[in-house]
Each structure stands twice: as structure tokens, then as C-alpha cells.
């Protein structure tokens, strides 16, 4: 009952405030070439209002979400004196990259209810889309997944990294790492008032391999046998060439 009321209230609020987001990205395509070394995306926007700005603290959260894949999280346990992979939990869908940028401390900016509604933090997102109900004690595995990926730099948390100017304009830079996975990256923008989401918008960035990378990748998938034989030929020619070159140098 209370939840239904809250939902109703939440639905009614944005209509009353009439705030919408107008936004842009510095680029909506990223090409991965052989010398690709990461890419920085500038995400900017403004909050459009029909009436003067309402009361309350305003915050902005920007998330960038890479294409999801299934992952297996394993835990090592000591069995007969040696550490081996013992328990494992399958996560059906975890984004390969997930960045959260905020105007303040995430904890202060975002309320728990709103997080559940919009799946903003990474653990919430995985829980909502990725985890199967069968997993018993999967909480620990989920925390480990986030911890490991955050240590790798795949799940950055960028607190205080969204600049908000005069309660209207916002901008943030999100660095996409060098080990990027191909696919569509979803950018979500949330405008919050007193921890409540009042406006959202989604944008997409297409990340694709280009040039030589594209050629090699496509060939390995479409003509695997030919690809394997070609790789062998490459090895044979290189081996022979090096041998011939050294013979020439030494004689």
C-alpha cells in the first residue's frame, strides 16, 4: 500500500515540476583501431523548465553502461592443502563496463528507493537484470564481482565528477578504457531533486572495431578454418624469413 502510494507520488512529481533534459555527447561513435588506447567521452546537457526552478537540492547522475555478457564468479577454497576453485555463481548478465558519475557523494545524492526504481548503482543493476534466483548466498559473489571489476577499472565510480552550473548546465567526462568490448554503450542521465529522480534521458554510443581489427575479427568468425591456416602460414613464413635473414647477416 505504502509502496503503491510512493509510486504514485513519484509518478506525479515530475509532471508537476516539468523539468526535462536536453543533452549531447562529444561523439556517438567510437572506432577501435589497432592503436586504440581508450577514449574520453564528454557528456553534457541542460535542464529545461517551463516554470522557475523548484525548491530543493538538485543533483545529476550520469551512467555509462557497456554491453552485458554472462560471467562466472568463482571462489577458491582450501581443499587438501591446496587452493582450488570450489564454489561458483553464474551471473546471466553483467555489463562489461559501467561508470557512474555524480555531482556529489553517491550515498547523499541517491535514495535507496530511487536506486531500486532506476537501477543506478552497479550492484543494483546486476541484481535487477543479471542474477538468477537459484544462487544461494550469491550476495558475497556479487560484491566480489563488483570489487574485482572495480579494481580492474571496468566499474569506475566517479563521485563529484559531474559539474553543475547555475542549476541548469551539467557536463562530465567519462574515460572509456583501452580494453573496450565492442557493442552499444548506453548513457543514462538522471536529474534528481532531494534524492528523487525528476527527469531522465538515454543516449547511445556505438563502439565498433575498424580497419585491420574489423578484418581480423570478421575472418576469425566467418572463416575459422581459413583463418587458422592463414595464421599458420604467417608463422611459417615469419620463421623461415627470420632464419634466412640471420643466415644472410652472418655470412
Amino acid at each position: 500500500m505504502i509502496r503503491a502510494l510512493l509510486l504514485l507520488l513519484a509518478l506525479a512529481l515530475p509532471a508537476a515540476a516539468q523539468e526535462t533534459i536536453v543533452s549531447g555527447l562529444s561523439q556517438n561513435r567510437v572506432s577501435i583501431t589497432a592503436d586504440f588506447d581508450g577514449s574520453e567521452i564528454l557528456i553534457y546537457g541542460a535542464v529545461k523548465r517551463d516554470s522557475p526552478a523548484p525548491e530543493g537540492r538538485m543533483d545529476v547522475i550520469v551512467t555509462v553502461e557497456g554491453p552485458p555478457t554472462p560471467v562466472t564468479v568463482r571462489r577458491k577454497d582450501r581443499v587438501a592443502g591446496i587452493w582450488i576453485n570450489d564454489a561458483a555463481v553464474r551471473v546471466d548478465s553483467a555489463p562489461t563496463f559501467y561508470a557512474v558519475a555524480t555531482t556529489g557523494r553517491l550515498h547523499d545524492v541517491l535514495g535507496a528507493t530511487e536506486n531500486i526504481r532506476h537501477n543506478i548503482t552497479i550492484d543494483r543493476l546486476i541484481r535487477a537484470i543479471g542474477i538468477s534466483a537459484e544462487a544461494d548466498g550469491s550476495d558475497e559473489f556479487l560484491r566480489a564481482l563488483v570489487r574485482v571489476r572495480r579494481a580492474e577499472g571496468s566499474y569506475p565510480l566517479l563521485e563529484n565528477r559531474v559539474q553543475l552550473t547555475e542549476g541548469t548546465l551539467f557536463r562530465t567526462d567519462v574515460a572509456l578504457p583501452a580494453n573496450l568490448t565492442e557493442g552499444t554503450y548506453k548513457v543514462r542521465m538522471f536529474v534528481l531533486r532531494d534524492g528523487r529522480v525528476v527527469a531522465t534521458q538515454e543516449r547511445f554510443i556505438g563502439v565498433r572495431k575498424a580497419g585491420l581489427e574489423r578484418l581480423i575479427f570478421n575472418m576469425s568468425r566467418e572463416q575459422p578454418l581459413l583463418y587458422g591456416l592463414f595464421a599458420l602460414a604467417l608463422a611459417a613464413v615469419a620463421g623461415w624469413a627470420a632464419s634466412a635473414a640471420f643466415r644472410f647477416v652472418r655470412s
Partner: protein
Amino acid sequence: MQLYLPIAEVSVDAFLLLGIGGIVGFLSGMFGVGGGFLITPLLFFIGVPPAVAVATGANQVVASSISGVLAQLKRKAVDFRMGFVLLVSGVVGSAIGIKVFSVMQALGQLDLFVQLSYVVFLGFIGAAMFQESLRALLRSANARAPVRRAHTHSWVHRLPLKMKFRASGLYISVIPPALIGAFVGFLAAIMGVGGGFILVPAMIYLLGMPTKVVIGTSLFQIIFVTAFTTVMHAVNSQTVDMLLALVLILGGVIGAQIGAIVGLRLKAEQLRVLLSLLVLGVALRIGVDLLIRPAELYSVAPGVLP
């Protein structure tokens, strides 16, 4: 200089890759081992996914072995007949190994099985070789001691189906080399290596082949085993990264040539002591990993459980 690898989907330093290829190639040319037991852990260490590391490592070993074999061929240090016997039996062993591999995969303990195989086989062979070669080295330093014969006649020489291996100066039954070849092929499939580190000591100690011929012959057999592995991986799992292989090969072929030259300058006993130390080192490293509590108990692997 960063290089984005299309299949591995990671960006790594190209010079680091060249260096890794060079070191592995150097060892390959010097000892006649493919270096698969080194390249896979090294690639894994710099962030290449294990499946890509295994498959691409095999591709690199093909190149450095060809480069090494050509260097050995010039001084007629390849026993083709022996190589052929090892090769045919190796394919049979490999087929059995692939079966066992898939059974272990289904049980979900492939990693442990591979690690234990590394520790047991590398440790055992390394220790045996180290002890033998050190004794030989001390003996050669002490000239008054009686000289041991290159090989002695034992039950091995009483088996039927004798065959002449002219390059090795042997007249023995084909059964022992066939068994060794099959065993190496089996291990190659399970551990994702060429098997040179087993083949080299087996040929020296079990078959009594001269060390100089052993290296070329071992490389000859490794070319075919790893070539087979590369194509199998490319077709089955699409994990051969051609760009990664190219850079590793570039470093590897140069390293292999230098290794072959350095190998010529060293005495056979010294060569064996060094190889045994290397093998022992890798075994120890993997063994310690199994015993020490890891800093992060959890690991994340893309894909689902088999």
C-alpha cells in the same frame, strides 16, 4: 606503444609483447623446447584471457620452432625418421588427451588438473634432469673420473621391430619412441604445450640420443603438434589472435636465432643444467600458487559454467 588485440579485446604494450616473444624464442632456439609452458602464463600475466593465451601461444611456437629447426637443419641435427615416428604416435596420444580434456572440463576442474599436471611433470622432469646434468657437469670438470658411456644397452634394446635411426646413430625398436611420442601428444593436448620439455629429456635419457640431434628433432615434432593445436583452436573456439601472434612471432623468431647461436657456445651439460633449472622454476611457481592463500579469493570469468 599500445596495441589493441582484436580477438583478445585488450590493449597491451607492443614492446612488452615483443620482449615476451623474444625470451620464449631464445629458449626455444637454445634448448629445443617450444616454450609453450612459459608463454601461456606470461600472456595471462599481462591480461590476455587464458583461452586466447593458450591458442595464440601455440601459433607463436610454430613460428619459433620453424625458425629453430631451420637453424638446426643446416648442421644436420634433425633425425627425420625419429621425428616422424614421434609425430605419428603423438597424434594418437593427442586424440586421447583431447577426450580426457573434455571430461575434466565437464567436471569443472580443468584449471586444477592443468596446474597439477604442470607441477607434477615439470617438477619431476626438472629435478631428475638437474640431478643428472649436475653430476655430468661435475664429472667433466673432474677429468680423472671414469667417463660414462653415452648410452648403455638395456631392456630397451631387446624389443622387436628394430629400426635404424642413422642421424642419431641408433638401432633400436620403434616401440619406445612411439610410446614416448604418444605420451607427449597426450600431455600436449591436456597442458596446451608442445611437449618439448618432456621430449628432450626422454630422448636423451630413455632413447640415448645425442643431445645435438635431440634439439632439432624435438623442434621438428613440436612444429606439427602446435600447428594442429592452432588450427583446432581457431576452428573450435576462435581464440587465435593473429595480431598478438604476429608481434610475438616477430620477437620469437629473432630470439630463436640468437638462442641457437648461444646454445652452440655452451656445453651440452651446461645446457641441460640451465633447462632443468628453468623447468623447476616454473613448476615451483605454479606449485606455490596452489599452496599460498590468494589475495583475492574470487575470480571473474566471462562466459557461463560448462
